[in-house]
């Protein structure tokens, strides 16, 4: 592969020299100093196909176990690993918020609250683009949003602004042989990501296709209400593919959408102007627009939120799948992966050579949709 590529190509770091693999302490890059002799030759991945199935199986049972002993809100907030600095920062922020809450709840004059609301709204209206904010500014807007929610709904939410970790590139694989069209992923996604219930917005579409006719999306049904799996059909799910060369990002006139370091394509809902150019540019039907004010019943709101992920949206902005950034960046699988009863959905770090997703990419016959467009999706399909 030449250095100059005529088109964009997804870089999984496979061709990069591993700093410890090629060179050794003696400084030589080719063998001869003797210290390489002890290293066992690399023979790809250690897991076999049977072990892979077992791993998927195990993951599934683990999930159900987790489901039985679900953490309550208190644990969700406090069972978070963090370093001292961020702990201090969070403590200070929550103290401030708490003090504010105590203050307002004890205050006799409601005018204070209205004033604070107005102040928060003003600052939110004229804040900058999240992508360009400093750490402090990011935390400040998160605190404002949390406080604003508290003032409005008298409920506390937890919102994070976790940045991408180094050496992480998220990828997704979909097993067409396994999917039975149960759509548990769709409902889990709606719940997790606080999507508008009125318009029944869904990020995931499951296409029901006829056996023996190949992938005929135009003849597929993506809005079925019958019992599944239907005789003589197979199922294929689509959502945002988090392209490595995303056309939607290129076209946004205000840089309200961008690709994060870990490969997630995200939107700053507060910076979006709602022109829907990205929607026209997406070849995968991955983006959704809030045509009216999104409504989520208070008791159904997922209060574990991320600024770039499932926080509540407003009217007139774009939104899309973020591979559940609020979950994936804290080491969990996206809701769709967790909810899938068949194990058709695989998610993981593409840069980790021992991840399941890497095993799938290297051992299965994988393909992607519309590869000719040069978008380099990080979403692969495969069959058993």
């Amino acid at each position, binding site marked *: 592969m030449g250095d100059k590529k005529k088109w964009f190509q997804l870089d999984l770091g496979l061709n990069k020299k591993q700093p410890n693999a090629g060179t050794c302490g003696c400084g030589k890059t080719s063998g001869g100093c003797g210290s390489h002799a002890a290293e066992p030759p690399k023979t790809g991945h250690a897991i076999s196909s049977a072990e892979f199935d077992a791993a998927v199986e195990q993951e599934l049972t683990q999930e159900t176990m987790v489901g039985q002993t679900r953490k309550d809100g208190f644990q969700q907030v406090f069972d978070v690993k963090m370093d001292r600095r961020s702990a201090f920062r969070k403590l200070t922020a929550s103290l401030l918020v708490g003090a504010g809450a105590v203050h307002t709840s004890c205050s006799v004059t409601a005018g204070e609250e209205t004033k604070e609301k107005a102040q928060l709204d003003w600052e939110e*209206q004229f804040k*900058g*683009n999240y*992508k*360009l904010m400093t750490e402090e500014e990011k935390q400040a807007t998160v605190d404002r949003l949390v406080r604003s929610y508290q003032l409005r709904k008298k409920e506390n939410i937890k919102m994070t602004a976790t940045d991408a970790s180094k050496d992480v590139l998220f990828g997704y694989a979909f097993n067409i042989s396994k999917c039975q069209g149960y759509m548990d992923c769709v409902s889990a996604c709606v719940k997790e990501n606080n999507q508008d219930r009125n*318009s029944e*917005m869904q990020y995931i*579409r499951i*296409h029901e296709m006829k056996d023996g006719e190949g992938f*005929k*999306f*135009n*003849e*597929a049904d*993506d809005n079925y209400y019958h019992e599944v799996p239907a005789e003589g059909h197979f199922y294929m799910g*689509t959502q945002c593919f988090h392209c490595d060369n995303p*056309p939607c990002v*290129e*076209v*946004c*006139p*205000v*840089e*309200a959408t961008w690709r994060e370091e870990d490969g997630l394509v995200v939107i700053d809902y*507060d*910076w*979006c*102007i*709602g*022109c*829907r*150019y990205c*929607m*026209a*540019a*997406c*070849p*995968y*039907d991955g983006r*959704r*627009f*809030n*045509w*009216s*004010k999104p409504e989520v019943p208070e008791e159904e709101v997922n209060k574990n939120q991320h600024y770039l992920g499932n926080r509540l949206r407003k*009217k*007139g*902005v*774009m939104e899309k799948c973020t591979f559940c950034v609020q979950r994936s960046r804290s080491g969990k699988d996206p809701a769709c992966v967790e909810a899938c009863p068949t194990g058709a959905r695989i998610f993981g770090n593409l840069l980790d050579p021992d991840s399941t997703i890497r095993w799938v990419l290297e051992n299965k016959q994988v393909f992607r949709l519309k590869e000719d*467009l*040069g*978008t380099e999706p990080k979403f692969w399909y495969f069959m058993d």
Partner: protein
Amino acid sequence: METVRAFRSMVKDSLGYITHGSKTYHIWMIFLTVIMLIGMYCYSIQLDEGLSVTGMNDRVSWGLYISNFTFLVGVAAAAVMLVMPTYVLKDIDFKQAVLIGEGLAVAALVMCLAFVVADMGGPSVLWHMIPGIGVFNFPNSMLAWDVIVLNGYLFINITIPLYILFRHYQGKEAKSKIYVPGSILSVLWAVGIHLVTAFLYEGLQARPFWNNALLGPRFLASAFAAGPALIILVLAAIRKFSEFKIENKTISKIAMIVTVAAQINLIMLVSELFKEFYAPTHHSESAYYLFFGLEGKTALLPWIWTAIPLNILATVLLTFHKLRNNFKVLYFCCFILFVAIWIEKGFGLIVPGFIPGPYGKIAEYTPTWIEIWVTLGIWAMGAFVFTMLAKTSIGIELGKLRYKKKKVLESETA
């Protein structure tokens, strides 16, 4: 100081001038105001409830607003067809027509910007697009380019006529050394605004119907047919309702431009149809939907089958000198050509781009009444702006508006 005083006096005079006029003039302005008010009311509903009150949805995410925007960019660009011969080639025939043309460009641009704003989900955060305060995705986003070229073109088209009219108002000759470079710039700029607007669609690999190298040139050809066709109609109206003299020769020359542009446009249409239907591929489905309908979904058929015959009829009629030189036929041709291109470059271009969707889903689009009224309101606003601009410039050109009642220049009456 004298200049400032003169300018203030011009603004005051023209305000007085546009608020006075014949009965027909008043009825016309009241009529436009009523439509604008209805449009504003409908827009307030849209602001309140969101874009869900329009016919657009996640499958067809651009509709009537963006269609009209695209078409009007063409109308705005067409003013150049008059600017070029008058200012640059010193063809005196067009002198009167050119101020009208530039006024039309300004009105069209105002409408363009209004349509874009009407289409936005969050008009309150539009300041994000202002370079300096906001973040501007330049040069990656074609929409960012479009904002720059449209506003630049608006600026040019306001300043040049303003300079000329201001000089005439003071009873002085406009210096060609000042306005000719501006005019040359506006000529290049006009091609730019239309090409950039075409690139907005052309650059999307997701939409094969738009991702087509002929889109840009075809935009230009159709614009240079529809724009001057509208100018001819407007000149005809001005000739009828004011004392402003427009010679037959001027109209005939513009008619020539319309004819050539319409012929080129027709050739390109044939080329496009050939490509889509001779060896149809997956990418021809949008064209199939537009012309024949897909899976029984045929919402655009009446539109496109109105547009194509009108387009052909107008082009054929215009091609014959005898018919073209008969003004009754000419006006008729201009009207049907304008309507045909409005359908073709508006609805017929934007909506099929989304149908079928990325995965072949066919969801049709029908504008709602709210959307239609907002659209009509914006058109009324354009007509309102244009009427005011045209009335003022005619007033100054005829010498009715003069600073300290200076006499009319001889060169103007010629």
